[in-house]
């Protein structure tokens, strides 16, 4: 019985209304994130086995290969199809845009001749990138193209010989690898001879650094200011400070500036550390220089100006996080509630952080997209991608939204700090104010 009393008391303390609310919000947020990812995965895997092909060689042999390919893909286990397209020029970027397709396998002129000459035949695969998010680049196109075209070539050319057992040693060697794949990547209107998977992996250095730093900064600066305000309120040092001959605006500004400086210092340290880590990973890698040149030509390396643009959004996000933390800190009853109150910021940062790493947010359904865009931190997580892919409207739209959001939060925070509310409100039913009221009513 005594144990049960103790247990009940501990449980009541730990399972407060705040904790339950946070759990509910977390579940809703995670379900939302899951739905968004599911939508992207479904979209990405839909038609995954389809192969879009431009047959530039257009011989009886290539038509036979395509027929064999169609037969293979239409089998129940693959459920795919061959989509034939016609290119009008060698400008792959323009052709993908004109045909409104993301990728294509190109059977070049001379393909048949190479096969007939007993040489490894070339096949090209071109893919357009619109985002650096992982799931937006789900594509098995190149692998499928090589696998199925190889099968088609083998069955068209060598099937009889294999059955008859009349293959030469050279033909046996060729049978293992009858096709060589040349991959190209298109970004905006530029094309480079580099596989999109390599582009994605090389760019991950850039695309990972900003979100990770951003996430750490938001959490770190929010925690600092929230704890600072909550501790000052609980210890009543805030009362001492606000009764001194110094304006309340100075007190708030000093706190925010200090948190901003420490956050910026953290940003520099993390940025340096991450860059060193990433350069350590790629240093001395084969073809490193040519890869870098290809990335640069595709516009996927960040210029100083683009770093500034990303920096502006990082700064805005930090200020937003600080202003929200000011409000939440003012609401905190004690250090414990301050720890719980950080959760909305954690979730607001975590959802766009995860989604932007995995998905191309621009391709989400309008409802989900605008919900995610409504989270102010989203725009900073998209900043480096928007800068690299020249999504100017999205970038500046994000900046304007963040400025408006910041103005609203700051106004709200200042209204709390400049009024009695800083001493009278707290989360969970204005308990401080109620206490004052109760005090005035004692004895009644």
């Amino acid at each position, binding site marked *: 019985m005594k144990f049960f009393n103790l247990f009940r008391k501990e449980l009541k303390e730990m399972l407060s209304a705040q904790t339950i609310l946070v759990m509910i919000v977390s579940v809703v947020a995670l379900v939302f994130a899951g739905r968004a990812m599911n939508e992207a995965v479904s979209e990405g895997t839909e038609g995954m086995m389809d192969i879009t092909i431009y047959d530039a060689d257009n011989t009886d042999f290539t038509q036979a290969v395509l027929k064999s390919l169609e037969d293979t893909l239409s089998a129940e286990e693959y459920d795919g199809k061959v989509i034939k397209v016609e290119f009008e020029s060698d400008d792959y970027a323009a052709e993908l845009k004109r045909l409104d397709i993301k990728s294509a396998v190109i059977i070049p002129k001379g393909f048949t001749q190479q096969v007939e000459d007993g040489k490894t035949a070339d096949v090209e695969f071109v893919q357009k990138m619109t985002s650096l998010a992982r799931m937006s680049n789900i594509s098995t196109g190149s692998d499928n193209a090589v696998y199925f075209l190889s099968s088609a070539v083998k069955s068209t050319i060598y099937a009889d010989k294999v059955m008859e057992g009349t293959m030469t040693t050279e033909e046996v060697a060729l049978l293992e690898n009858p096709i060589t794949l040349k991959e190209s990547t298109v970004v905006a209107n530029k094309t480079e001879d580099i596989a999109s998977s390599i582009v994605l992996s090389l760019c991950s250095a850039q695309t990972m650094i900003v979100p990770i730093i951003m996430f750490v900064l938001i959490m770190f600066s929010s925690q600092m200011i929230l704890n600072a305000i909550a501790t000052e309120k609980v*210890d009543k040092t805030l*009362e001492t400070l*606000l009764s001194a001959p110094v304006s309340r605006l100075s007190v708030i500004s000093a706190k925010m500036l200090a948190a901003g400086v420490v956050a910026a210092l953290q940003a520099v340290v993390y940025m340096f550390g991450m860059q060193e880590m990433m350069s350590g990973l790629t240093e001395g890698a084969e073809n490193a220089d040519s890869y870098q040149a290809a990335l640069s030509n595709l516009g996927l390396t960040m210029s100083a100006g683009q770093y500034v643009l990303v920096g502006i959004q990082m700064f805005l996000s930090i200020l937003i996080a600080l202003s929200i933390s000011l409000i939440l800190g003012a609401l905190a009853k004690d250090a414990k509630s301050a720890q719980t109150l950080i959760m909305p910021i954690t979730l607001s940062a975590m959802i766009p952080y995860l989604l932007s790493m995995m998905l191309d947010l621009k391709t989400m359904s309008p409802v989900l997209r605008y919900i995610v865009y409504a989270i102010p931190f989203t725009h900073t997580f998209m900043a480096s991608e928007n800068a690299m892919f020249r999504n100017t409207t999205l970038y500046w739209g994000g900046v304007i939204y963040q400025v408006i959001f910041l103005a609203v939060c700051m106004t709200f925070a200042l209204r709390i700090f400049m009024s009695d509310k800083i*001493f009278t409100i707290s989360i969970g039913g204005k308990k401080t*104010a109620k206490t004052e*009221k109760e*005090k005035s009513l004692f004895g009644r």
Partner: protein
Amino acid sequence: MDNNSAEKVLEVKGLSKQYKKGVYASEKVTFDVNKGEIFALIGPNGAGKTTTIRMISTLLQATEGDAVVAGHSILTEPEKVRKNITYLPDEAGAYKNMTGKAYLKFMAELYADTKAEVDEYVQRGCEICELGERLNYKIATYSRGMQRKLLLARAIMSKPALAILDEPTSGLDIINALEIRRMIKKLASEGMSFLLSSHNMLEIEYVSDRVGIIAKGHLLETGKPSELLEKYGTKNLEEVFERVVTDNEIL
């Protein structure tokens, strides 16, 4: 000293704080504090002492009335008021990662206009709190009594026109409480004015020149402790308080 002819450091005129329509934390509170006087607001927990003090300290906005500190209105010149007061909240803490001396310096810099003034305040603060070498230790290592002494030193080192101390000896042991009471009396004799609040009426009887009895947000009686004892024919302020609230049908 004649109360009417004395120089007034604080004039509270009909000060009210209403949180919700009809619910007053303090209502039409009127009193004054003279130069060099120790005035104490006494009453039980929740009587409206802290709300009144917070309004005078410019932390809360008054719903009605006004208070004038050293000639400056809390409504129209709050920054000038803050220049003339110091406020020590009940159960206040200090920045635990600072040393005692660093804390005094930090606070002195908020009140002083020159470097010389900062040095003067810090030196006085160090003398008042009598913490000696411990001033170079972090506040986190201080006992409750040491911390309270440091905070009191902070509140009076700048020699404000009015020092507002909410429950100045709450939670202190007898020795520390006595020291603080003596310190307040000594500084008042040197011309500093004090507005105290306490529910410890025996302490107030010893330390204050005049008292105001407050209950349920209403200031019911003011006067010198000796006058009140005589007026109500009681032995101590606790009995005076009981009589006052009973007469006013408050309890």
